[in-house]
């Protein structure tokens, strides 16, 4: 046997009345706040708040200030500070100092940045085969080599530079 409540729910689903009844005992006093408030249509609320970040990010992108590649320099405590980050989207900028070396940089970038050092020396230090292309990223070689990590490589580069 169906309960009266279920019947009522079913019927009302088919033809809902456009009004609701406030339960007995409620005080029909409209809400008072200390603030002057104005109702905002929900559509406007959503559209405005989606538009705001779009405009800010779009503005920075069009101004050329948006850099999302790893172009900035790593800051390590106790290391010297260098120039601010580059803004190119093409890839990581060449390191200015050993402390700026990142895993996403290539062997060739290190060779270019620290002239006395050769690709063979770097590959040997990383424990990679000497026929490895110089376009390989350092982090890839570190993962494969299992010999040293990036901080150790930075220290080694600093020692080489000191000589």
């Amino acid at each position: 046997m169906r309960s009266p409540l279920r019947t009522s729910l079913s019927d009302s689903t088919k033809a809902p009345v456009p009004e609701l009844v406030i339960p007995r005992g409620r005080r029909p006093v409209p809400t008072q706040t200390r603030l002057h408030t104005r109702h905002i249509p929900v559509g406007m609320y959503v559209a405005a708040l989606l538009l705001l970040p779009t405009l800010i990010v779009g503005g920075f992108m069009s101004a050329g200030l948006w850099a999302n590649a790893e172009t900035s320099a790593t800051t390590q405590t106790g290391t010297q500070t260098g120039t601010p980050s580059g803004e190119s989207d093409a890839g990581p900028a060449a390191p200015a100092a050993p402390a700026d070396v990142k895993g996403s940089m290539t062997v060739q970038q290190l060779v270019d940045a620290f002239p006395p050092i050769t690709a063979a020396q770097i590959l040997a230090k990383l424990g990679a085969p000497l026929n490895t292309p110089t376009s390989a990223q350092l982090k890839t070689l570190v993962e494969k080599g299992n010999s040293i990590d990036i901080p150790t490589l930075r220290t080694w580069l600093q020692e080489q530079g000191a000589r």
Partner: protein
Amino acid sequence: MTVTDEQTSGDQPTADVRIRVPRRSRAWGRTVHWTRRAVQAAVIAVVGWQAVGHVTSGGESAEAWCPLGGFEGAWTMATTGRTVAHVHTSSLILAGTVLALALVGRGFFCGWLCPLGSLQEMVHAAGRAVTDRVPPLRRLRRRLNLHAGTKGWKRVDRVLRWGRWLVLAWAIIGAAVTGTMVFRVADPWIALLMVAQFELSLAFVVLVATLVLALFIERPFCRYACPLGAVQSLAGKLSPLAVQRDASACLGCDLCNQACPMAIPVNTRTRVTDASCIGCLECVGACPSQNGLSVTLALPTFRTRTTPPATGPEPQAATASEIMR
């Protein structure tokens, strides 16, 4: 709603007064809900595309789209002019954007744009779908829901919510002192981005714990541990936008409380200015009364109270038949 002066004076006994208020169509609530889902899906698609591109072709890192990195690197940037590792200029811009968004729209970013929050909601919805079909799990969920209403659990919940501030302090102060992103080791978002390069790390454990908890609790990381949410809670205190409840149109039906993913007792608030409000509008969409809940803009002026405050008896909840009628 039309109410006579006699009724609005607040001095009259109201026990026998029956008031009719306009009903809000259910389709409207569903539209709000699915609009939010569509926006969340679009954001997840963009970030997922970035993450997959980074893994497969070495494209730009999806971390570049993380605003928290901007907050972590802000001190180092201000003092040395350089960013910390894994933080890009884009992160700083996004941090500023999220801050601006919080100043205007409170936790709108969390509710509509944050992919980690969206993921937790998806997992919770999946968990509900499964537990609805498996009787033992359904009983377990009901038991948990019963416990969630007890004073003891509410106290635990209140204490745990301080976790966000602790994590924020750890992330910001740690980054400023060490010059590295200390929170990165426990950041579930980073673990998710690097899930293809599987590595059993603390971040991965936090991610798994978050997703398991999300089966039973909505947005557990957002409630108890998200430092970005904590930043927005601070900035959101200045926001002029909030969901406002009109007590004279409120049925006391509790649907708004049940819909809130952050477990805010909406039907006890006049303006929902809670630090954990994420502006998702689920409460507004769930409210069957057209004027019960709405989004309001507070203007920078105050007014004096002209009518005495409502001091009547506690509202009685509307029955299901009353709501449906």
